[in-house]
């Protein structure tokens, strides 16, 4: 009995490790759409380009005490991807506060491979924990500047 429980719980731990491994900066937010976080930076101004980058050339600048957290994500679209409107991504900081971006997904399946930088207006010094795209969560802590 104890052995069965042990094996069962080990399997559960293994599943959890696999799941969190998938969330470590890499995920599949929708079937046929792979997303990998490649960079997290800070800047005083940011381009609000759509994702994939299109004709939107609006830029935004920060106010005192703020900065833009720029999260760059590379996307790969496979033939199984079915085009559908996607919600704007969000990020969560280490205190679990959520931040929005003004960058929007537009025509996600129109290009097979691309990279997008999502700007999030955050208070200076904010440390990010994760990026949410649809129901997927991608770990950002390893890419945050120490």
């Amino acid at each position, binding site marked *: 009995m104890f052995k069965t429980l042990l094996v069962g719980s080990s399997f559960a731990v293994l599943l959890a490790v696999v799941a969190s491994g998938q969330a470590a900066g890499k995920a599949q937010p929708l079937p046929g759409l792979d997303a990998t976080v490649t960079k997290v930076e800070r*800047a*005083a*101004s*940011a*381009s*609000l380009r*759509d994702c994939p980058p*299109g*004709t*939107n*050339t*609006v*830029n*935004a*600048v920060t106010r005192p005490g703020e900065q833009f957290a720029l999260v760059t994500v590379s996307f790969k679209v496979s033939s199984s991807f079915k085009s559908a*409107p996607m919600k*704007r991504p969000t990020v969560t900081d280490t205190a679990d506060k959520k931040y*929005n*971006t*003004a*960058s*929007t*997904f*537009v*025509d996600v399946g129109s290009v097979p491979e691309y990279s997008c930088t999502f700007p999030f*207006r955050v208070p200076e010094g904010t440390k990010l924990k994760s990026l949410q795209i649809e129901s997927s969560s991608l770990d950002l802590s390893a890419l945050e500047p120490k």
Partner: protein
Amino acid sequence: MEVDRRAFIASLGGVAAVNLMDHEAKAEALEHYMEEKLDEMVAGQQPEKFPTVAEIEAQITTRPYRRGAGDVFTGRGQNVKILEKMPDKPTLQDFFRLRFAPANHVLQSATRAMKTGMSEEIILACLLHDCVLSLIKPDHGWWGAQLFEPYIPEKSAFAIRYHQTLRFYADDDAGYEYPDQYYRIFGHDYQPPQYIADTYKMLKNHKWYMEPRLVTVNDLYAFDPNAKVSIEPFEDIIGRHFKQPKEGLGYDNSSSAHMWRTLARPDNPL
């Protein structure tokens, strides 16, 4: 922003290529070039120095026209061209072709609204929201709504009227950032006048707040020379929601007929 003339001409393929372009194409190419340079500056994290309100006001006497003059009344530094005559019973599409053209900005905004799944009323509002800039620029939200109001759904007219106000106010939840272009054209120390602040206060509690907000979300400073935009994808929406008068725009005795006639004949002296 300073423009390196040589680099700009080289980017277009040299002097010979530039000589083949008309003034409009050159102006658009310059705008595109400046936007690219701006993006590079953003990427390089070198903050742009925005003008002050006083610096912008100091430019007033450097122009032979006022900033608020509609596009059909100015040549953007060149002499104006002869405009093609409008048909006897002009339609909205005729105005797009002959008076609002190239209309890239509104066509790209409406295209984006369509791609992001907006309602037809919002797509129509995006398509029409800045068309009145051909006639007049100050208070273009109110002028634009007045121009189209007799012909379009109430929600679309509401969205056009108030997008002008909401442009000045960021909305994090809706995904709208105050655009740095406004620091450039109004000055970084600009404060919207009281009537705009009062209108914003009214809108915040209005049940249709999201209608003009969604226009601002899709209101892009877009210029892509390769973008293929046309009014064709919107023909059905126009057909369903724009009440084209049988007498033609300008001749139906509507409350804005005179505005359409002014657009049709901007060279009339009186």
